[in-house]
Each structure stands twice: as C-alpha cells, then as structure tokens.
C-alpha cells in the first residue's frame, strides 16, 4: 500500500495540473467561470482543502443532477407522443379536407341532376302523368341526397374539435417547458375564450368511419354488432 503522504502529493499534483489546464482554457477564450477557478486555487491553498473540495464537488454534482433532471422533465413534456399528436392532427386535417371535398362534389352533382330534372319537367308539357310522377320522385330523391351529404358538417366539426383539444394540450406542455427555462414573465397564454362559443373540452381520439364505400363500412359494422349481440344474449 502506498503511504498517505505519497497519495496526498500525487493528488495535489493532479489538481494543480487540472487547475493549470483550466487556466489555459480560460486564457484561450473559453467561457470559463474565473471565480470558480480562483476558488479552486483558494481551496487548494487551505489546510482543509481536500475536504472543502469534496463538498464543492458534491454540491456541483447535485446541481448537475438537478439540471439533468430538468432536461429529462422537459424531454418528457415534449416526448414522442407530442410529435405523434402533431402527425395525427395533420392526418385528421387531411381527412377533414378530403371529406369536405367529397361532400361538396356530392352536393354539386346532386344539384346539377336536380336542375336538369326541373328543366325536363318544365319543358315536358306533353309528358305523360306517369313520366311526370317518376321524374318528381327522382327530383325528390336527388334533393334528399343533397341534404344527406350535409352530414359532412358533423364529421368535420368532430375532427376539428379533436384537433382543437390537442392544440390546447400542446399549449399546456409548451407552457410547462417555458416555466422551466424562461423568465417568469414569458408565457404562452391559453386561447382567449370566444363569446358565445363553449370552452374547449378535452376530446378523446377515436377511430372514425372513413371507409371509402359507406355501404361496405356499414356492412362490417353490422357484422361486428351481430356477433357481439349474439354473444351477449347467449
């Protein structure tokens, strides 16, 4: 075993080398805290220098651990689920856009056919009663179809509500991060309430029916429902 004096000498020599390296770094323009460097030299000159240095290092370790903890906390707030939510929102907006466009085309097509039927009825003075009756039936069907296409409004509203609640959640997360790093005066205020519009409530995510063929989608739902209902009554 090496004598204590020898260990002490080696350790002091090591710390002097560290101190020298720090001073060199400082001199070369690195942004090093000169007070800390001075403090290091000061403790080394004291009789109880090692004990003080040990306490200082422990304090530094605790502070570093605290900073790392805050970084982890921040990472937790901006974790992959937040990024996933952004992707989901993007997907929902595309769905909304697509559903709106599809419904608009449906409405335009229905109205075009309805106008054509009206023109035929208008021009067909010699039309038989049966033909007239049939055409009025078709016109009624077309107008009913146009009304039916307006369901897109509800589907769009539900998707937008979900996206809105996700944005509010992201605002909350960003505020938490800002509280950690930024001065207290800096905050991202939540959205201002709009008079007459209900406050934003958390809207859970769910799988929407976006089957390209509504009849096929309904058939799948019917099948699932029938199986489950049969099991329930059994």
């Amino acid at each position, binding site marked *: 075993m090496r004598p204590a004096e020898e260990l002490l000498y080696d350790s002091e020599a090591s710390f002097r080398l560290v101190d020298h390296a720090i001073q060199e770094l400082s001199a070369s323009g690195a942004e090093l805290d000169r007070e800390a460097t001075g403090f290091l030299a000061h403790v080394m000159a004291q009789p109880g220098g090692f004990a003080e240095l040990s306490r200082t290092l422990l304090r530094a370790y605790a502070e570093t651990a605290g900073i790392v903890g805050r970084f982890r906390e921040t990472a937790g707030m901006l974790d992959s689920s937040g990024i996933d939510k952004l992707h989901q929102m993007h997907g929902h907006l595309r769905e909304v856009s697509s559903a709106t466009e599809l419904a608009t085309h449906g409405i335009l097509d229905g109205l075009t056919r309805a106008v054509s039927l009206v023109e035929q009825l208008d021009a067909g003075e010699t039309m038989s009663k049966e033909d007239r009756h049939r055409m009025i039936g078709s016109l009624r069907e077309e107008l009913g179809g146009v009304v039916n296409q*307006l369901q897109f409004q509800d589907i769009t509203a539900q998707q937008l509500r979900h996206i809105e609640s996700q944005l509010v959640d992201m605002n909350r997360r960003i505020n938490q991060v800002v509280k950690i790093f930024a001065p207290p005066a800096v905050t991202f205020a939540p959205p201002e309430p709009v008079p007459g519009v209900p406050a934003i409530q958390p809207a859970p995510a*769910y799988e929407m029916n976006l089957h390209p063929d*509504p009849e096929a989608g*309904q058939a*799948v*739902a019917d099948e*699932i*429902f029938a199986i489950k209902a049969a099991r*329930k009554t059994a």
Partner: protein
Amino acid sequence: MKFLVVDDSLTMRRIIINALQRIGYNDVVEASDGKEALERFDGSIGFVITDWNMPAMSGVEFARAVRANSVGASVPILMVTTRGAREDIVAAVEAGVNNYILKPFTPSVLKEKIDRLLASMGAAA
C-alpha cells in the same frame, strides 16, 4: 310512435328528423346531449336515436342510463355515429344499444334499421 333524437350537431338532428319525416314518423323530440336527453326521456318515448360523441353525457353513457331505468329497459336504442372501431361497436352493445349506424348514412339504411328493430321488438313483446 314518439322518437327521441339525440345529437349535439343541429345539422345532424335536422338530417335525422328530415329522414324520419320522410319515412312517416313525425312525432319527434330533440336533445343536444345525453344529459338533456335523460331529462326528456319518459314513458312516452318509443324509440331512441342517439349520437355517441356529445358534451356533458355521451351516447353510450346515455344508453346505460336508459337501460338502468325501468321505463327504458325495452326501448329500442339506435346509435348513429362516426365511431367505426370494433371496440367502439362492442362497447355500444355492452351499453345496451340495439343497433348501430355509421355516419355518413343514407335514409334507406335508417329506415331498414328502424323497421328491423321495431319488428324484433314486436316479436319479443
């Protein structure tokens, strides 16, 4: 027969009521969420058509509440919703919903479901 139509979307309520009137059902009561629907639900209601996603009380919660009420134990409940996932359909069955329509729907699908439910309820009675 009196229908109770529950949906937070005024557009959807109008579309459903419009379809019901075309089928021949003119006696309709409206509610904008499950809570309001429960307040309006009494022995005179013969058929319920409800959405799932609504503020205050969802359609599934409303269905459970209706089934827990002795007056609503046998009233047909038809869910009309955009939720198309298997687990959602299963949850609706568990809550006591009698049939399920996906939005967007056509009036013919609505008629078919109502006819079938009324026929099965009549057979069960």
